[in-house]
């Protein structure tokens, strides 16, 4: 499949008909999604309407925008006016968003053709997309395996070659980890680079929207479109964001540190092998790499507890609005004449087990008598983690390491033990806690072992606000390494 960048260029030049491009994407979706179940709602009519709009704009002789005719899929936790918005949960079944998210507005304004709503772990809580109330998504590299999560639907849609780019959201690793497991590029911007307006909240102080793309250049292009200050999201930062598309893709002289903490014993040895090769590639590009001895990020060791305590505390409050009173379905299973019973029935019947687990954990961490030891304590450790990163960025331009400790695991392999699933975020949660921009780029397939033949991701993390530099490094890396390997489902179609 062509890149978003070249589709947009050819649609703008008149070489491609946006309606044809859209129909081809729809056909791919209809065929390939049978195998991967990346989509909760293909929402084909909307795609056709948007393609018609682009065609109409072209007929008028106007510029349809930087994403003219590019089919883009959105994770089903971002509001598109009139479209479904399930967040992967039964508690939003049938609900249609009464307004547009900021990112949907930006994409449509630049001529993108929104195609379908992608699957996710319920309320983005998970690392495998198995927690979706609508069934799991499968990895296009091996359909017995998970695509990662929670943006697994978006990752699988891109890896299957249905769309060149999709949006995901990340709270603790939910863009980069599925990108790594599906062999594509996934970018988590600096917290506050992209508006969260219209994103169903999970952990509000962590949630960020970002692109998943087959090519780093496309991730940069979509980032440029969706990044910006939004007065309606008080946590977006003001000021312009330098273009990640035009930033020079050059690794020459870049100081890249590899903290030993990223090479944790929990990381699979074949994953480490691929990452080591990738670091050599960075050096070939002129980067100065250095392994930073253990001790520079001592608090990173606590990232998992800190991340889960903070995110779940916020989630326990964010998810209180799902009570069946003012929107969405309500359970009729119990005596609905009683207020307390109605609350409990709706939330018991319509939330899945992982969501309930996290609400309970967050409620505990915030509750009287425990908040100091758990919620507040985790926030103090969070500051230590931020401080340690800040100190490292005095000496390094970027930090590198594996994105995920392991490759795509089997469906069911980790879903029985909550904590083993939580370990998926081991290497991604730290940058989330510190709000840093971080990209996962595909760096080849594991040669041997459990994850043989499955993709491995290299993570590059930069200082806050340096999103454009992080993406430029990803582009440079891809330029040297060459086009990433494609999944069997994607195949070699142009």
């Amino acid at each position, binding site marked *: 499949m062509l890149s978003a960048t070249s589709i947009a260029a050819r649609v703008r030049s008149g070489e491609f008909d946006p309606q044809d491009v859209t129909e081809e994407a729809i056909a791919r979706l209809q065929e390939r999604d049978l195998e991967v179940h990346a989509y909760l709602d293909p929402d084909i009519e909307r795609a056709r309407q948007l393609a018609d709009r682009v065609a109409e704009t072209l007929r008028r002789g106007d510029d349809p925008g930087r994403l003219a005719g590019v089919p883009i899929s959105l994770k089903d936790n971002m509001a598109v006016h009139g479209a479904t918005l399930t967040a992967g949960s039964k508690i939003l079944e049938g609900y249609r968003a009464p307004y547009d998210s900021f990112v949907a507005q930006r994409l449509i304004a630049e001529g993108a053709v929104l195609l379908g709503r992608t699957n996710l772990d319920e309320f983005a809580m998970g690392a495998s997309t198995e927690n979706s109330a609508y069934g799991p998504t499968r990895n296009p590299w091996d359909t017995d395996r998970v695509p990662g999560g929670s943006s697994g639907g978006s990752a699988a849609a891109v890896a299957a070659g249905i769309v060149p780019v999709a949006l995901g959201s990340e709270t603790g690793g939910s863009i980069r980890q599925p990108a790594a497991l599906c062999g594509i590029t996934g970018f988590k911007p600096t917290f506050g680079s992209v508006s969260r*307006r219209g994103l169903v*909240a999970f952990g509000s102080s962590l949630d960020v929207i970002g692109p998943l793309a087959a090519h780093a250049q496309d991730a940069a292009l979509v980032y440029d479109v969706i990044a910006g200050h939004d007065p309606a999201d008080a*946590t977006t930062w003001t000021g312009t964001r330098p273009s990640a598309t035009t930033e020079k893709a050059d690794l020459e002289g870049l100081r890249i540190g590899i903290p030993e903490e990223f090479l944790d014993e929990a990381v699979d040895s074949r994953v480490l092998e691929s990452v080591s090769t990738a670091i050599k590639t960075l050096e070939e590009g002129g980067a100065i790499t250095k392994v930073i001895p253990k001790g520079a990020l001592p608090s990173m060791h606590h990232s998992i507890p800190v991340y889960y305590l903070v995110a779940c505390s916020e989630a326990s*409050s964010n998810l209180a609005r799902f009570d069946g009173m*003012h929107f969405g379905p309500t359970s009729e299973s119990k005596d609905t004449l009683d*207020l307390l019973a109605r609350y409990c029935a709706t939330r018991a019947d319509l939330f899945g087990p992982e969501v309930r687990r996290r609400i309970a954990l967050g409620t505990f961490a*915030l509750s009287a008598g425990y*908040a100091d030891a758990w919620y507040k304590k985790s926030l103090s450790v969070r500051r230590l983690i931020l401080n340690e990163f800040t100190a490292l960025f005095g000496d390094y331009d970027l930090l590198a390491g594996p994105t995920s400790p392991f490759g795509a695991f089997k469906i069911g392999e980790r879903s029985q033990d909550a904590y083993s699933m939580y370990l998926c975020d081991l290497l991604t949660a730290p940058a989330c806690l510190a709000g840093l921009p971080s990209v996962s780029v595909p760096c080849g397939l594991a040669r041997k072992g459990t994850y043989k033949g499955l993709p491995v991701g290299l993570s590059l993390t930069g200082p806050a606000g340096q999103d454009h530099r992080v993406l430029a490094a990803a582009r440079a890396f891809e330029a040297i390494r060459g086009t990433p390997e494609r999944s069997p489902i994607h195949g070699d179609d142009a």
Partner: protein
Amino acid sequence: MTADMRWRSVIGLEVHVQLSTASKMFCRCEARFGAPPNTLICPVCTSQPGTLPTLNGEALRLGVLAGLALGCTIDPSTKFDRKNYFYPDLPKGYQISQFDRPLCRDGHFKFSTEEGEPREVNIVRAHLEEDSGKIIHPEGVNFSLVDLNRAGTPLLEIVSGPDLHSPDEAMAYLQELRRTLRYAGVADCDMEKGGFRCDANISIMPVDSDTLGTRTETKNLNSFRFVAGALQAEIERQAAVLESGGTVIQETMAYDPDTGKTSVLRSKEDAHDYRYFPEPDLPEFRVDPAWVAELSAGLPELPRARQTRYAVDLGLNKRDADTLVAEKELGDYFEATLELTKKPKETANWLLTELLRLSNDRKLPIHELNTTPARLAELVNLVASGGVSIQAGRLLATAMEEQPGQSAEQLAQSMDLVQLSDDGALRQIVEQVIESESSVVERYRSGNVGLLNALLGSVMKASRGKANPKAARQLLLDTLDS
């Protein structure tokens, strides 16, 4: 012996005031009372998934102004927190409020009791928060209805220290608080529209003790009458409990205005765990001390200061000063008129009699009458200069209101109300009277000076009441003694 004689009560009040903004606290829906249900709502205040709050800057400004009027410290930054609980009028499942860093803190607020005794309460804190929606209970059905028009309108919660010692004192504090907030332009404090609501913490202790008793909280007192009734009822209930050998339990009470009694709403075992934590959707907000200083300088004269000035500097009696200060519009009207007359007592008299009468008759607020301060000043000055009599002035006041195109003087002329004060016409009448009442004049001249009044009466009669009595008297004296 009533409870008040054996027990000393300790009262602290929490007052929720709706701030006078055009839009809601965290979305730009209109903040207005009385619209059809659920017409002033949007995705944000109905808590649709993915929506985010944006702080209304005017709510912040009004909160600071209120804090300044209450003598509070305003810290250079403030933040918001979430208070988590489920209730059908709270669509998010949490209320955005302020927990550990209120916008305003540590204030001192002065007021006077009904008897004029000065008092001071500590204002522990005043913080911003959003209001909830309204629940309606239709008769004869098994469901309730929710209207979210009010959800998200800005409130300031003002928490006093436990510094009040009787229902009367509490009432006097509330009256002064309400009037002060209205003067500061912060809030209408319209109780009928729920713009001023009160919760009361009450405990009692023996008059000879200094150990605080266990307190209860009485919720949702939405009129001054309810506050007084509820405080009295709760004090009496606690006294009865203690006098029968029981103990007061820390619990939340409700007041039933129909029975005049308080009853338990929930016990302490049901105490909430609100799980406050910093609102992650809102950053900290700077409250620039220079801006606060500017707001402080722009604060209008507050009612207590104005009242003192009226009574002490202007020499008005307490009742008039009280009345003028009760509503800011009336005081402002007075100020504007006084500027043009420089006669405080006369201005107050005309304002509080004729203008209030016109305002009542016409069912118009005083500042909507045709009689502006400038026109009232014309009238006051005309009477004071002797141009018309006081009686004529009253007729003139009504005429001026009815004929806004005519000046006081023009109307006095056309209504033939001008007093005869000048030498010409008045001298003629005086001379006529002296001539026609020669016998009285003779008796006067022979020493019966008391007859001057009889002669004056004749002059008034001959002038058909238009003679200026003072001028006429002087002229009579001059003529008789010459």
